[in-house]
């Protein structure tokens, strides 16, 4: 969670995405404790209510869970959940804008497919 906050998106969403990214990268492991709301607030100089909103979003999705009186932990299976969520979102967040831009530039489908081949996915 050492990324910088940007202005282009709600802060609480950035907080939840940073925690997700840390889980994907193996910085945070399953069944490990995540930083508390207050720690996040201090680290990013944001209101704790905003940090809490980001954390709670992940609790609602079953990616984090709360141990009473101790704190928040990464749920077992969190990594898989995040991957499948991001794969689903990929079409909307990356593919559609890419296709829209390709269309406005007059690129054909086969030209686009060639570019993907050339760039080695």
């Amino acid at each position, binding site marked *: 969670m050492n990324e910088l906050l940007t*202005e282009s998106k709600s*802060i*609480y969403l950035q907080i939840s995405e940073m925690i997700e990214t840390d889980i994907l990268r193996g910085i945070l492991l399953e069944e490990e404790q995540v930083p508390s709301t*207050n720690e996040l*607030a*201090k680290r990013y*100089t944001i*209101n*704790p209510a*905003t940090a809490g909103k980001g954390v709670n979003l992940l609790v609602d999705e079953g990616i984090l869970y709360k141990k009473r009186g101790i704190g928040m932990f990464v749920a077992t299976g969190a990594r898989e959940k995040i991957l499948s969520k991001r794969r689903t979102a990929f079409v909307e967040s990356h593919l559609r804008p890419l296709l829209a831009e390709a269309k406005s530039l007059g690129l054909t489908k086969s030209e686009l497919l060639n570019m993907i081949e050339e760039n080695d996915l």
Partner: protein
Amino acid sequence: MKLICEHITKQYKDKLALNDISLTLEQGKIYGLIGRNGAGKTTLLSVLTAQNPATSGSVTLDDMAVWENRSALEHLCFSRELNVSAESGLGSMKVKEYLRTASIYYRDWDSAMAERLVDLFELPVKKRMSKLSKGMLSMVTIIVAMASKAAFTFLDEPVAGLDVVAREQFYKLLIEEYTETGRTFVVSTHIIEEAADVLEEVIILKDGKVLLEADTQALVDSARYISGKAEDVDTVTAGLETHHPEVSGRAKSVTVLLKPGQSLPAGYDVSIQPLNLQKVFLALCGEEERQ
């Protein structure tokens, strides 16, 4: 504890500085008070803390009137912007003498914290107040506000004149103190964007009135900047709350505040962009000059 003001007005000779202001400040929140110069921010803070009488209306802390009431006032700290001149009594005071005076005034004064902050800001305590720069005077007001330990603490332009490092130190300090104690802070500032992430609620003052009181994140999330061909922009924003329209040739841009449940119609070739708090503020308060 709750600090409530109802129907506050403040009439100066030929100016209505505050015009029927009602607010409820709850314990354990950081509020931002923003507005243009002369909007009434400092007057409001001084009335809320009984440093200045209202012309009409009431200010109460848990049903106790605040005015000349020691048991209410000891929970309030208003650290106002210091204006010192060499001739004034304040100007000839040394910084450490000023802090000592504050330590007597505030019942719950935390002298260890005051010392820690003097070190953090590298404040020259042996200097006279009149010899301090604008930024150093701001540091003094911040130290008084923090060390007062008052349940409701009001800071008027605390970052005025501070460099970017000191401003960051201040916001970190504010969050730290807030998370550890749950004190309520009300911060007025002109440097809106830096403060935006710290403020849970924002109160926008305009011409002595509360223009808007909102959850900061919710307000920012509800705002969109729409631009494109004028007729498309008009179609997309029809029936929505719009601010600050600008037209140039065939192009038009406008700021929209979406109410809960509202959304923008899809399928139009317009650009939709998020706004930060400063841009929202400009859209709400920057209108007149342009017309």
